[in-house]
Each structure stands twice: as structure tokens, then as C-alpha cells.
């Protein structure tokens, strides 16, 4: 598991900088650097084995069913990249300490930076391709956070969004590609996939895999035509540009191409797509870079161009080209990061990044100028610097490449791109540091050593590798190339400064001389470029985004009409259609189960139910009548339960019926009393058709099931075990509190939540617009007597009786019809009747309990009973029971399930009382308002009549 630490240390370490920031910026920087150093130490500890040619593996399964594992592997390529990421990361952290303004939250910045660092190292050491995709998207996210660091600037926000859309979208392509790749190769482990290149290339999925993976790689590595996001990402602080957008993250695409090189390369499709894209990117990037005026934009486009170079090399598909690519990755990371940090220093000291306003800085800041000039020369490919060596290898590889039967195309393109890169590098060097001093910036001077030291550290290898490439970079490139090309076995690598006079050298010289010459005619070229014109990528992108947003709005606008009836009509019609299709495509044979006889009472009840159902459809405009009809239906359903051997259901249904009716009455008091009839015959016909079809369907389905015999079910077990296992003879109750107690536990929690939501909604109804409307409502003139004396007396007399009945129903519930639910409802009805008969105020004053407490106590009691079983080493909600001989009462059976049922009881009482009492409280306001107004009206009337008499 040690290997995972290379990625996990920075990821988890990202929590530390914001904390360390309390102790100051220096401590914060040290802590951040310490985290990176720790990861680096783990990497170094694993390095010897890798350099010997071994592959270090570690990890564990994650979701094996999905092929997702948490496995890492470190081979030469991984070591090469991880070393770059962590090494340059360390320098960037030191540099950022001085770069960030004192007022900026450096802790957060370092946290993002470490997040990126961990994600990026995760990419290069993942063994599982799905894990790799996870890290891949994490880098896109952290890049988004860092580009938008200065979120007050619109460029920062837009650049961040654009980068996220392009690279995040590419990440989705990559994910699809990786899923297909895993399918084709039969494994999601890279170490397995790498050995199955032949299978993958022969698979019919090869072309989709290739295109999807390339989609991910090209967007990340800013390849044409996805290159446009990178320059806009330059809105980020310069340390970020140096780190993410030149040295590491943009190379993730190149890394991926190298990683999958043994699997995907070697085909015509690979060669054509990858090398062409690389070549075009190289030329386009270099051409644009030549004419940019912002230092960071020049460097950004040059990065695009250099990434194109690397892609092209991998596209060639030869070992020599791949070695050149890896070597150039190393070189580019060093000189480009140095250049970016140099540009940051210039910006920091002079306050501008516009090359037109800069010049002659070598006299003001000699150290920075010297370092930047060396790096720029390396970028141009000047001999004795590392850029020269790898660029010459690139030219040699290009010279050997025939593209579509044209032997000259790639060499000429590569030379031309090199020539352009010489030109833009020279323009950069001359324009900023040499030449005439243009901007009066007398205060500009070299920054403190902490800021230029990281640049110097990078310039050292630029020179050293340039002088002795084989000695210093040879072994690392060899082991990286070995694991890229030959699955571990090292391949001979010869990095030399001098290969004799060969075509590559001639191309190199042409590029150097031509590049300088090109700079001489730069002004003319600039005019030419202005005349040619080019599509503005950002404008195109913005237009694309706007069109997408408009399309999304249109779709949402069409679907999301805020009309509940329309949604329901669509849902119901679809359900009916699916059911009809199912019925028509199947076969039907009548059932064989004998029908039960029908007595006259059943027939009468059925007729009442049917009549009420039909009537409610017709008269639903009259709401009170509708409620009465609903009550009739509820009563008939209770009777049906009673008739069909379900006494518990009948009891529950009838009590719930009462509570529901009270609830609806309370609500109707405030709602309009009539529903206006809906116009639109067509609409009513449509609804009637849906309703009729649905009714016919359910009736037919129910009939079909009921006329067939039931196979053996778990119910037989429940019946057999009710007494010996659950200690009760009422199987339904035992099922509720014991066999399926967990269900019941969930149910009472749902009840609790419903009650609390009701409280929340009504609590706030007494303020704001709702309260004003309440004040305008009048009590119905029909309710002349608010608290009729008869009702008051009867309910008060009934209260103790109802409570007794409730307790009785509760106690007998385990063995006879009854139980917590019914008992709770009965008690709740008795209590609610007090509110209705005597008024909210009267009842609330006399209430000795808090309904909230009842709710909580109920759930807690039920839960604690269940947990109690755990204490005895039994599963949650196991019940126990025993017989006790109580004096006078006799033998009493007590079961822990009773305690659970008591919890149910309390919750039901709490829910009903709480919700209904809250509605009653809202009504009270109307009542008071009416009373107040009627007294005022009476007063006014008296005054008026008095005036009339006078």
C-alpha cells in the first residue's frame, strides 16, 4: 500500500495548508513543501527497484463487480512522470510563496495545488484504468479551481469554465474509451491490458476505443482543434501556468498516449490521426505564438506547439520517435517552467506582460534575464542546451517518416515548426530582455532569491543535460522508454550531442538561421497574418455554449410546464400504454380458483362504493359533498376488510377514515368550498379515457390474480411461528412488531418526518403573505356556533372512555385484533376532538404533553427496543417474551414487542395530534380575525344608525 501514498499524501495533505496558514505564510509554505517532499521520499524509496527494470505494484480491490480496483503500479514511465510532477511541484511551491500577494489566502492556494499534485501523480501511477479516469477528472477540477483563482476577474472565471468544459468533456470521452478498452481487453488493469495489445487492435471496438481515448488525450493536451482553452487558462496565477499548464497537467494527454502506446499504436489509424494532429498543432501553435503580445500567451501557444511535437512523435509509432518524445517531455518541462516563472517575475516587477511595452530588462534584472534567455534558447533549440538534443532527435524521426506516400511532407512541416519556434523564442528573448528599454520602469529589479532560485534550479538541468545528455538523462529516459515500448525490458538509448553531419543537423541549422531571418521580416508577416485573419476560437466556443444553453432552455421550457395535471396525464397515459402493450403481447387463460359466494350485504356495499365513486367524479366541484362521498367509500372498504377475514385492517381503516375526514374538514375550512368546473370537453374526455382504461386494467389484473391459487409463501412460516416465536396469536400484529419490525420502524419514522414537515409548513404560515391572506378569510356563516355545547360536553365525557378503549386495544393487540397503530389512532381522535369542540386555546392550555416529545419518544422507544436485542447478542429487533403471574390479573404475557408497539403507539398519537392541532391553530387565527372584525362592524353599524336617527 506504500505506493498509493505517492498520490494519497498530497491528496490528504491538501487539508494541512489552510490549517498551517494560521501560523503564517512561511510555515504554510514549509508544510506544503513538506507534504510534497514526503511523497517524493516514497517515490525515491521505490525508485531503485524501478530503475532495475521491475514494476512495483500495490493496492486492493474496490468494487470488483465493476472491475474497479484501487491498484497502483510504478514502472519507468510512471517514475519518470511522478518525478517530474513532484520535483517541479516543489520548486513551484517555493516560487508561489513569493509570487502570491500578502493579502491572498495562500493556504487555500496551496491546498488546491496539492490536490492537483495528488490527482496528477494518481494518473501516472494508476494500475486500474477506471481509477485513472477518476484521477484524470480530479486534475480537471483542480485545474478549474486554480485557473479561476482570481475569481473577481471575468477572464479568470471564463477561462476556468472553458478549461473545465473542454478537459472535463474530454474526460467523459476518455471514460467511455476506457470502458470499451476494458471490455475489449477483458480487464481494467493496465498491467493486463498492456499485454493484450494484439487482442485490442484486432477487436471491432478498436476504432471507437482509439477515437474516444484520443478525444480525452487531445483535449487535455490542448491538441488542435481543442487547443484554444490553454491560452485562456493563462488567467491563472503564473505558478499555476508554469506547473499545470506547461510542465505537468497538459502532458497528461501525452502520458496517456505513451501509456497506451503498446496497446493502441502500430496501426494505420493511429499513425494518421495522431501524427497529423500533432503536426498540425505544432504548426498552428507556433504560428500563433509568433504574433502574440502577452508574454504568457506567447508561452501558452508555444506550449501548444511543443505538445503537438510530442504527440506527433508518439504518432510515428517507432521506438526512436518515442524515446525522442519522452526526452523532450523532460526538457520541455524544465525550460518551459523556467520561462513561465521568469515571465511571472517580469510581470511582478514591471507590472506588465505586454511585449510591446517591455525591452532591455537585462540591465535592470540581470539574473532573471540570464535565466530566461538560457531557457528561451533551449526552447529555440540552440546547441549545448537540452532543447537542441531532443529537437534534433525529433527532426531525425520526422526525416524518416513518410506520410501518405509523401516523403517530404512531415520533414518539411517539422522543420517549418522548428523554424517558427526559433522565431518566437528569439522574439521573446530580444523583445523582453535585450534591445531597447521601452518602458520607464526604474523600480524594476531582480526579485528576492527565493523567487529566482527555483528558476535557477530548473536552468541547471537545461544546461547540464544539453552538455551531457546521455550521462544525466540517459538512464531515466531509457527506463521510461523501456516500460513504454517494451513492457519493462530496457531498450538501448543513445542521447548524443553530436551525431555527425546528417539530415537532422541540416534541418536544425535551417531552422535556426531561418528563424532569425524570419524575425527580421516579422512586421511584414504580422500584416500578412492580419490580412489572412483566423476564426476566433473563444467567440466560436462562446457561441457554441450559448446555443447549448438556448437548446437546454427550450427543452426544459417545453417539458417543464409547471402543470401537475399535465405531468400526471403523461405518466398515467404511459403506464396505461405499457400495461396495454403487455396485455396484448401476452396470452391469457381464465383462472381456475373457485369464486367465493356473494351475499346481499356484500352486494349492497359494493353498489354503495361504486355509486359513490361515480358520483364523486360528477360532483367533485362541491367539495363538502365530495368529502362525504369519500367517507362512504372508506366505510365500505372497511366493511370489505371485515368481511374478508381482516379485522385489523377494518379497525385501522375505520379509524384512519375518521382522522382523515377531520383533517379534510379542517383544511376545507380555509380552502375554497367549490372547485370551478373545468371547461374543455375534449380535456375531460381525454381524462375520462385515461381513467377508464386505468380502472379497467387494474380491475382485470386484480381479477386475474384472485382467480389463481397462491403458491406457498412465507406466510405459512409466519403463522406457524407467531405463537412459539413471536409470543402472540394475532399474526398480523406479530408480523408488524416482530417479523417485519424493521419495516414498521421505517414507517413510523416516515410518519414522524411527515408530521415535522407539516409543523414547519404551518409554523411559518402565520407570517408574511400567508398570514395576510388568513386575516382576510372569514369564518363560514354556516358555522354560526363555533363551539356547540352538546359537542363540547360529549367529547369531554368521551375522552376518558376513548383513552380506556385505546389502552385496551393496545394491550390486546398482540393476540387479538388491535395494536399500536389502531390504539394510537383512537387516542389521537379523542384528543383531536377536544381541539375541535372546545377550541385550540382551551385544549392547548390543558395539554400536559408535548406532541414533539411524543414523536421523539415513540421512535426512540421503538429503536431502543430493537437495540436492546443487540445487547443480548441477537439481531436488531429480535423480540423476547415471557409469562408473568400478576396478583389479581392472573397470567400475563409480556413481550418486548409490546414495548416496540408502544413506540408505534406514541408516534401515531404524536403525528396525528401534532399535524391536526397545527391546522387548528391556523384556523384559530381566522376565528379571532372574524371575531375582531364583526365587533368592529357592529360598532360601525351602531354608529351609522345613530347618525341616521339624528
Amino acid at each position, binding site marked *: 500500500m506504500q505506493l498509493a501514498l505517492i498520490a494519497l499524501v498530497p491528496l490528504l495533505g491538501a487539508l494541512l495548508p489552510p490549517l498551517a496558514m494560521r501560523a503564517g505564510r512561511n510555515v504554510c509554505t514549509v508544510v506544503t513543501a513538506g507534504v510534497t517532499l514526503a511523497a517524493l521520499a516514497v517515490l525515491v524509496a521505490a525508485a531503485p527497484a524501478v530503475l532495475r527494470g521491475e514494476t512495483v505494484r500495490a493496492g486492493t480491490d474496490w468494487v470488483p463487480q465493476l472491475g474497479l480496483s484501487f491498484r497502483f503500479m510504478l514502472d519507468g514511465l510512471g517514475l519518470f512522470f511522478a518525478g517530474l510532477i513532484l520535483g517541479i511541484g516543489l520548486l513551484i511551491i517555493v516560487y508561489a510563496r513569493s509570487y502570491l500577494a500578502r493579502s491572498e489566502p495562500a493556504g487555500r492556494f496551496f491546498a488546491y495545488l496539492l490536490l492537483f499534485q495528488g490527482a496528477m501523480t494518481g494518473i501516472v501511477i494508476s494500475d486500474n484504468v477506471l481509477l485513472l479516469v477518476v484521477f484524470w477528472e480530479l486534475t480537471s477540477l483542480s485545474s478549474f479551481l486554480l485557473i479561476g483563482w482570481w475569481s473577481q476577474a471575468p477572464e479568470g472565471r471564463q477561462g476556468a469554465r472553458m478549461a473545465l468544459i473542454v478537459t472535463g468533456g474530454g474526460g467523459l470521452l476518455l471514460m467511455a474509451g476506457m470502458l470499451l478498452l476494458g471490455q475489449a481487453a477483458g480487464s481494467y488493469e493496465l498491467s493486463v491490458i498492456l499485454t493484450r495489445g494484439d487482442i485490442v487492435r484486432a477487436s471491432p471496438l478498436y476504432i471507437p476505443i482509439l477515437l474516444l481515448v484520443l478525444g480525452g488525450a487531445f483535449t487535455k493536451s490542448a491538441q488542435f482543434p481543442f487547443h484554444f482553452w490553454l491560452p485562456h487558462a493563462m488567467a491563472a496565477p503564473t505558478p499555476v501556468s508554469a506547473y499545470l499548464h506547461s510542465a505537468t497537467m497538459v502532458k497528461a494527454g501525452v502520458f496517456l498516449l505513451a501509456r497506451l502506446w503498446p496497446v493502441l499504436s502500430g496501426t494505420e489509424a493511429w499513425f494518421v490521426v495522431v501524427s497529423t494532429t500533432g503536426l498540425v498543432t505544432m504548426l498552428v501553435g507556433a504560428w500563433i505564438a509568433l504574433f502574440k503580445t502577452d508574454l504568457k500567451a506567447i508561452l501558452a501557444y508555444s506550449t501548444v506547439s511543443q505538445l503537438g511535437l510530442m504527440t506527433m512523435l508518439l504518432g510515428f509509432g517507432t521506438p526512436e520517435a518515442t524515446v525522442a518524445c519522452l526526452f523532450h517531455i523532460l526538457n520541455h518541462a524544465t525550460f518551459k517552467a523556467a520561462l513561465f516563472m521568469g515571465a511571472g517575475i517580469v510581470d511582478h516587477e514591471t507590472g506588465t506582460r505586454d511585449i510591446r511595452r517591455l525591452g532591455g530588462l537585462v540591465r535592470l534584472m540581470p539574473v532573471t534575464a540570464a535565466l530566461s534567455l538560457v531557457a528561451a534558447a533551449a526552447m529555440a533549440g540552440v546547441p549545448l542546451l537540452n532543447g537542441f538534443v531532443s529537437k534534433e532527435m525529433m527532426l531525425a524521426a520526422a526525416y524518416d517518416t513518410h506520410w501518405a506516400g509523401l516523403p517530404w511532407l512531415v520533414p518539411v512541416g517539422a522543420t517549418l515548426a522548428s523554424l517558427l519556434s526559433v522565431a518566437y523564442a528569439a522574439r521573446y528573448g530580444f523583445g523582453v530582455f535585450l534591445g531597447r528599454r521601452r518602458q520607464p520602469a526604474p523600480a524594476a529589479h531582480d526579485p528576492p532569491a527565493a523567487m529566482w532560485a527555483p528558476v535557477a534550479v530548473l536552468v541547471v538541468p537545461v544546461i547540464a543535460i544539453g552538455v551531457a545528455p546521455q550521462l544525466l538523462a540517459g538512464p531515466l529516459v531509457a527506463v521510461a522508454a523501456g516500460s513504454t515500448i517494451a513492457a519493462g525490458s530496457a531498450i538501448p538509448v543513445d542521447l548524443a550531442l553530436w551525431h555527425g553531419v546528417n539530415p537532422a543537423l541540416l534541418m536544425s541549422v535551417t531552422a535556426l538561421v531561418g528563424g532569425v531571418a524570419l524575425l527580421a521580416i516579422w512586421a511584414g508577416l504580422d500584416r500578412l497574418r492580419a490580412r489572412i485573419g483566423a476564426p476566433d476560437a473563444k467567440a466560436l466556443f462562446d457561441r457554441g455554449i450559448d446555443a447549448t444553453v438556448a437548446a437546454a432552455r427550450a427543452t426544459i421550457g417545453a417539458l417543464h410546464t409547471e402543470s401537475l395535471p399535465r405531468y400526471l396525464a403523461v405518466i398515467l397515459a404511459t403506464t396505461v400504454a405499457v400495461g396495454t402493450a403487455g396485455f396484448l403481447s401476452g396470452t391469457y387463460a381464465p383462472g381456475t380458483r373457485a369464486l367465493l359466494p356473494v351475499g346481499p350485504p356484500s352486494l349492497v356495499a359494493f353498489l354503495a362504493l361504486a355509486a359513490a365513486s361515480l358520483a364523486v367524479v360528477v360532483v367533485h366541484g362541491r367539495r363538502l359533498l365530495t368529502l362525504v362521498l369519500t367517507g362512504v367509500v372508506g366505510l365500505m372498504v372497511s366493511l370489505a*376488510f371485515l368481511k374478508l377475514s*381482516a379485522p385489523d*385492517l377494518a379497525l385501522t381503516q375505520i379509524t384512519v377514515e375518521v382522522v382523515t375526514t377531520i*383533517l379534510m374538514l379542517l383544511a376545507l375550512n380555509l380552502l*375554497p368550498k367549490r372547485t370551478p368546473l373545468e371547461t374543455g370537453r375534449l380535456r375531460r374526455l381525454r381524462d375520462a379515457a385515461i381513467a377508464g382504461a386505468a*380502472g379497467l386494467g387494474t*380491475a382485470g389484473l386484480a381479477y386475474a390474480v*384472485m382467480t389463481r391459487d397462491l403458491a406457498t409463501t412465507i406466510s405459512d412460516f409466519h403463522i406457524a411461528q407467531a405463537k412459539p416465536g413471536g409470543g402472540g396469536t394475532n399474526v398480523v400484529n406479530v408480523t408488524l412488531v416482530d417479523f417485519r419490525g424493521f419495516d414498521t420502524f421505517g414507517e413510523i419514522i416516515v410518519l414522524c418526518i411527515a408530521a415535522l414537515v407539516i409543523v414547519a409548513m404551518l409554523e411559518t404560515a402565520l407570517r408574511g403573505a400567508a398570514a395576510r391572506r388568513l386575516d382576510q378569510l372569514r369564518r363560514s356563516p354556516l358555522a354560526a356556533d363555533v363551539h356547540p355545547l352538546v359537542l363540547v360536553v360529549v367529547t369531554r365525557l368521551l375522552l376518558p372512555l376513548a383513552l380506556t378503549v385505546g389502552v385496551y386495544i393496545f394491550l390486546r393487540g398482540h393476540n387479538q385484533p388491535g395494536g399500536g397503530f389502531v390504539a394510537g389512532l383512537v387516542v389521537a381522535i379523542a384528543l383531536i376532538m377536544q381541539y375541535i369542540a372546545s377550541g385550540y386555546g382551551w385544549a392547548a392550555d390543558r395539554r400536559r404533553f408535548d406532541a414533539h416529545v411524543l414523536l421523539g419518544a415513540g421512535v426512540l422507544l421503538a429503536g431502543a427496543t430493537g437495540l436492546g436485542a443487540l445487547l443480548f447478542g441477537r439481531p436488531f429487533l429480535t423480540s423476547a417474551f415471557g409469562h408473568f403471574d400478576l396478583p389479581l390479573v392472573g397470567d400475563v404475557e409480556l413481550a418486548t414487542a409490546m414495548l416496540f408497539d408502544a413506540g408505534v403507539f406514541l408516534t401515531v398519537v404524536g403525528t396525528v395530534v401534532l399535524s391536526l392541532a397545527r391546522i387548528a391553530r391556523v384556523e384559530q387565527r381566522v376565528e379571532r380575525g372574524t371575531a375582531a372584525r364583526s365587533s368592529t362592524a357592529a360598532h360601525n353599524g351602531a354608529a351609522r344608525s345613530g347618525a341616521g336617527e339624528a
Partner: protein
Amino acid sequence: MEILIAASIGFLTMAGVYLVLRRHSYPMIVGTAFLSYAVNLFLFAMGRLTLDRPPLVDPAAPGYTDPLPQALVLTAIVISFGMTALIVVLALRGFLETGSDRLDGGPPHEPEAPGADRAGGPA
């Protein structure tokens, strides 16, 4: 008896579906109540119909009906009460907040002619 129960389920579903497709909150609530009846009966019927054999363990009993659908339906009845209470309050609050009990975003309830049995009316 099976025919009666099946027909009852059909009638209840029909009324419920028709009512939930109305444009005002109150019929919609009543519609869900009807659908609850229908669904509860339907679930209950899945245990098949039996006369005079309640699931109360008794050595003298000739047999029992299926207790499991009953247990499921029992909690369903209570839960549908909770749900009804919730949407009633939701509708109530919506009406108090906006002055409209329309569900399709249409114009609010037209004022009714005086004399209708409606709360309020001109003072």
C-alpha cells in the same frame, strides 16, 4: 366476491385517476385518497380472498387467510394518512401563500358569486 372486489378496485382507480388529473388541489387530494383505497385493496387481494378465517392463531381454527398482505396494507393505510396530511397542508400553505389552488400555473380561483357556501365573501 372476487368480481365485486375487482370491480371495486376498478371503480376506485377510475375515480382516483380522473380526480388527480383535475386542475385544482382539492380534487387532486381526494383523487390520491381514492387511489390509496384502490391500491390497498389491490395489495390485500394479492393474498387472495378468504371468508371467516382471520389470521388469529387458535387451535380450533380450520385455517387462516394470508396475514402478510394484511400487515403490509395496515402500514400502508397509516402511511397514506401521513401522506394525505402532508399534501393537504402543502395545498393549504400554497393556497394561503398565493391565493390560488391551481395546479397548472393558471390564473387563481375566480371569485364566486355571493351566496355560495364559501368562506369569506364581501364584509
